[in-house]
């Protein structure tokens, strides 16, 4: 027995499945109707049924494997055509069930494909410059003052440190607002993510913006230039282009 993992949906005749390995090491293929084609992979029923997937979702190494493979197939497909990415871990019993779904959801998929056509997703993150926050020790009080009132001197220094890192943080927040505003002007749509956990990102800088933008392909350079210019004074990181995962949900604007 096997199951069918769905990666993405494209218009019928948009092209063959990409030559990359899927989540179970399988070679992806297309299952289609007259109107739409689903990029799918045949996966083992043990491990990819509901219980198997639930177990996989408890294990970061397996999540990472699934996430990278799922993204890899969608990104490879998106290179030369418009595709609507499907949510991770969407599994059907067989090809007939996929065809049935494509027929049932045809209009909704066409709406999604129209909305993301010739558009890609770009991530923008802004961090507080941790080095600036901790840089340059506060101006030391004179040696006499320090000798006379060591406690006061310590408190003054602590307060100066605190004030300085608060100022750096406030300035980073201002940059984040400016960057988000400018990026939005050059984009079609925006989604904001929760701040990334520093333990997962491996960054010791505090993140003050974690957003992702849907951008017309024709305006990508303009978008990137504008974000870079607006980000002066903070640590700005752009990622992309991504297949428009964050803009593929039907209910959204």
């Amino acid at each position: 027995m096997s199951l069918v993992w769905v990666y993405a949906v494209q218009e019928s005749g948009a092209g063959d499945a990409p030559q990359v390995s899927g989540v179970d090491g399988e070679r992806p293929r297309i299952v289609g109707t007259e109107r739409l084609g689903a990029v799918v992979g045949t996966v083992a029923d043990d491990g990819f049924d509901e219980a198997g997937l639930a177990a996989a979702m408890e294990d970061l190494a397996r999540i990472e494997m699934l996430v990278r493979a799922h993204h890899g197939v969608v990104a490879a497909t998106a290179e030369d055509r418009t595709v609507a990415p499907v949510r991770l871990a969407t599994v059907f019993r067989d090809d007939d069930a996929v065809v049935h779904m494509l027929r049932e959801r045809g209009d909704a998929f066409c709406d999604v494909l129209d909305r993301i056509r010739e558009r890609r997703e770009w991530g923008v993150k802004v961090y507080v410059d941790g080095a600036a926050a901790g840089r340059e020790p506060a101006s030391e009080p004179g040696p006499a003052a320090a000798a006379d009132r060591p406690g006061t001197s310590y408190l003054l220094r602590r307060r100066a440190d605190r004030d300085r890192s608060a100022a750096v943080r406030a300035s980073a927040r201002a940059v984040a607002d400016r960057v988000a505003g400018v990026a939005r002007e050059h984009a079609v749509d925006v989604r904001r993510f929760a701040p990334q956990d520093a333990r997962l990102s491996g960054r010791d800088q505090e993140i003050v913006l974690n957003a992702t933008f849907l951008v017309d392909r024709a305006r990508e350079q303009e978008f990137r230039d504008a974000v870079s210019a607006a980000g002066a004074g903070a640590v700005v990181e752009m990622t992309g282009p991504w297949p428009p995962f964050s803009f593929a949900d039907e209910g959204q604007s």
Partner: protein
Amino acid sequence: MSGPVSLSHPDDELSLVDLLDRLLAGGVVLTGEVTISLAEVDLVHVSLRALISSVSTLQQGRPGEPGA
């Protein structure tokens, strides 16, 4: 956990945390009787548990971590 996971990426590899932002919450959600889909379960919630329980392992597994 099946051993430590390294979070250090070669430059050409996408960062896991950026992938997770997009793949756990993005994509068209398909539900219904013909679907076996974890989208019905709260994928983000489920996997967050895994992330939290994995973080200590990750930190031990990350080389060059200054004595944290």
